[in-house]
């Protein structure tokens, strides 16, 4: 079992950090800012990362019944993805592009149907993508209809989460690897029977959004109003984590709550029925990857799947984030909160209180991103100075560079932007 206690205040110092000493391959040097602001780097991310990884599109309950579908526009892949459940219960994914003249076939974002009909010229497709009918077919030349179905995209599920991959190099289960072992069997469907979601487009690079949720150093400052001392307190003033675990691509870390935290008056009323922090009705012990240190003060695990998805687990529910790159300085953020089905209307109120409080807290997280973006491309600063508790930011930058086939330390190439990227493009 890993260390069970947060390390108090002694995690400071570039070379004295407890967590960094466990992962010496990361080093402790400042981390270059250039990947966050370079348009050339963004295009390399598009080609070398987002076209090759398994990307999570949410849970299969979105398409619970045969005939159900949803559409996800994916700017980073320059496509629109149609996800369906066919009559036999199987899940399919396709480029949402008509075989006639590449119009979007399905213009709604979700629904249920027996077949898809393109609004442009009426071509229709089955739920499994096969071309069904072509109006005025006699006017075409040598139409090989059996080869003109919707272009499929690799799709698979893990514990009910739907993933797609535009050019898979390994199976989903291989991609998730050892990280997934720790959560296998968690009752995601039961504990996520109800889902509430929000989305927003931020004017910032996707990695700034990703970084915001990879450290708790900010909690005592940024969340001083919304969280007060829920995650701090005298024993842990800087919200040091209970645990970090770095997998080859993915991550897991755990946070403690402050045992002396006193809920607000309304919070105390809501807690009597449900919340994010009260026990779910597990029928058996949760898997080993939930509260991996078995700490009595545990409140939250953040599970990060490379490159842009997190599943954050609490006792009373979980929530997920997608960070979808739109351009070098635009990102779509999708937030989903999941709870068990409330047994009664009082529990429903308590879940409402939990998710609204959570929404307000993440408005504090989101407050830094566009502000940072407005100065980060100035060149005034060239590196981030990361402390021990910001281990995951360092890991993220390293694995991203490695996945892209780039040298991790780009400080040596920090000359003209053109020179740097000409080298990178030929790497």
């Amino acid at each position, binding site marked *: 079992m890993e260390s069970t206690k947060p390390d108090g205040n002694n995690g400071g110092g570039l070379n004295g950090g407890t967590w960094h000493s466990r992962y010496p391959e990361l080093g402790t040097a400042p981390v270059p800012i250039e990947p966050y602001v370079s348009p050339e780097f963004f295009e390399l991310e598009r080609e070398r990362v987002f076209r090759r990884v398994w990307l999570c599109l949410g849970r299969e309950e979105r398409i619970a019944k045969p005939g159900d579908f949803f559409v996800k526009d994916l700017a980073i892949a320059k496509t629109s993805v149609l996800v369906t459940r066919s009559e036999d219960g199987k899940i399919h994914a396709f480029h949402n592009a008509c075989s006639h003249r590449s119009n979007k076939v399905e213009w709604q974002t979700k629904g249920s149907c027996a077949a898809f009909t393109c609004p442009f010229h009426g071509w229709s497709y089955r739920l499994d993508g096969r071309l069904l009918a072509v109006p005025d077919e006699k006017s075409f030349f040598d139409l090989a209809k059996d080869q003109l179905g919707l272009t499929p995209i690799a799709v698979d599920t893990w514990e009910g989460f739907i993933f797609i991959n535009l050019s898979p190099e390994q199976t989903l289960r291989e991609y998730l690897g050892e990280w997934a072992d720790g959560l296998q069997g968690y009752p995601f469907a039961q504990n996520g029977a109800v889902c509430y979601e929000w989305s927003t487009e931020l004017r910032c690079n996707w990695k700034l959004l990703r970084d915001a949720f990879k450290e708790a150093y900010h909690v005592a400052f940024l969340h001083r109003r919304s969280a007060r001392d829920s995650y701090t307190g005298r024993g842990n003033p800087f919200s040091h984590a209970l645990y970090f675990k770095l997998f080859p691509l993915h991550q897991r870390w755990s946070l403690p709550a402050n045992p002396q935290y006193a809920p*607000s008056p309304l919070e105390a009323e809501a807690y009597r029925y449900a919340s994010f922090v009260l026990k779910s009705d597990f029928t058996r012990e949760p898997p080993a990857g939930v509260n991996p240190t078995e700490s009595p003060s545990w409140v939250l695990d953040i599970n990060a799947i490379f490159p842009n998805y997190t599943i954050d687990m609490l006792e009373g529910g979980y929530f997920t984030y997608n960070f979808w790159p739109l351009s070098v300085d635009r990102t779509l953020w999708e937030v989903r909160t999941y709870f068990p089905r409330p047994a009664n209307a009082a529990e429903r109120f308590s879940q409402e209180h939990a998710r609204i409080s959570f929404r307000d807290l993440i408005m504090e997280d989101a407050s830094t991103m566009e502000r940072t973006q407005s100065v980060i491309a100035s060149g005034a600063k060239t590196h981030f100075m990361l402390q021990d508790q910001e281990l995951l930011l360092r890991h993220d930058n390293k694995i991203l560079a490695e996945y892209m086939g780039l040298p991790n330390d780009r400080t040596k190439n920090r000359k003209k932007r053109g020179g740097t990227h000409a080298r990178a493009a030929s790497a």
Partner: protein
Amino acid sequence: MPEPRLPDRFHDLEPLAAVWALSTEAERHARRLASGIEELRAFYDALFPRIGDILAYLSEFPLESLTPEAQRLLHLAFSLAEVGPAVELFGQPEVPDGYDSRRFIPADGQ
């Protein structure tokens, strides 16, 4: 068909329900942002003392068995959840220096 009213035991809260018994998050949040902090405090101070009784009443209802009157009471309570952080934590309608919450879009009908 007449508008549903709150359950009889909460009939004194009907003036609050006329303003705050709103069925979607978008409506409740817009109402919070459109109110001054004094109005939010007045709503909180009037409703919070009753929330224990309200939740005890609501705990008798599975969601699929809510009467229209109980549904109205639940929507009123949802507004207390919406307004609570502004009164208890922020002292103003918006999250201070926060991201513009009007850009944070809930799912349709949420």
